[in-house]
């Protein structure tokens, strides 16, 4: 497998969607190619960083504000009347 092919199959490799033969080819290439190993490591870390973003939630004041705005529209209450 070449570097270009590794990049082409990178997400499928990470997501375990490659068939056994291609997966083995990718592993063999990665074992001997430092550059592709870096691309793999950093892409996997990017995905973990992505997962971590779920801890960011809408802050208290904004949450309350959004809730009130939607509630008012939903129940046809004029603004300022609860």
């Amino acid at each position: 497998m070449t570097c270009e092919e590794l990049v082409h199959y990178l997400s499928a490799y990470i997501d375990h969607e490659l068939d056994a033969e291609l997966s083995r080819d990718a592993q063999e290439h990665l074992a001997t190619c430092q550059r592709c190993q870096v691309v793999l490591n950093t892409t996997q870390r990017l995905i973990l960083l992505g997962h971590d973003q779920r801890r960011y939630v809408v802050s208290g004041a904004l949450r309350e504000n959004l809730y009130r705005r939607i509630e008012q529209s939903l129940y046809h209450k004029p603004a300022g009347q609860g």
Partner: protein
Amino acid sequence: MLDDTKLLAGLRQRDPQAFTQFFDANVDRVYRLALGMLGQRADAEEVVQATFLSAFEAIGRFEPHAQLSTWLYRIAYNHALMLLRRRHPEEPLPDDSESLPLPATLVDWSTLPEDQLLSEEVHETLFAAISSLPERLRAAFVLRDIETLSTAECAHVQGISESACKVRLHRARLLLRERLSQYFREQVAEEAL
């Protein structure tokens, strides 16, 4: 806490308790998707509001066998897309068959300490990078790699095939990897000193 059946029935009857529960369970995921797609907090707030109002109007047509959260993502995605069209009506849609962006920045930042990787600044850098991606690629990354939807769910939300969804996700990851590698390059150099 209402179970799913009672929640759905409550939403259909516009029950305030059901609305509160539905809002609390979903506002974060709708906001993250909208912020990733639009990049602006005010725009993301507008999409959150429009999404919940649309959901309530359409709740009578919701099929109970489907996932409520996936259905809501789809409404949010469509609202975000409409807002993008209003903001940038002239922006051409990139072609999914274009050649892949090849990695150019080869700095291994994956072993930086957790406190450096999980900082508020990195969070903001990542969301800024997501919202600077070509429009079609943004939702693919948010839905798969942040919200951790399956490929099938991700494709359904965007109204595209699973294979198209995989292509978009792969491009998004390569571009984001490149941008974060540029961002972390200096920190890796400092660590090496």
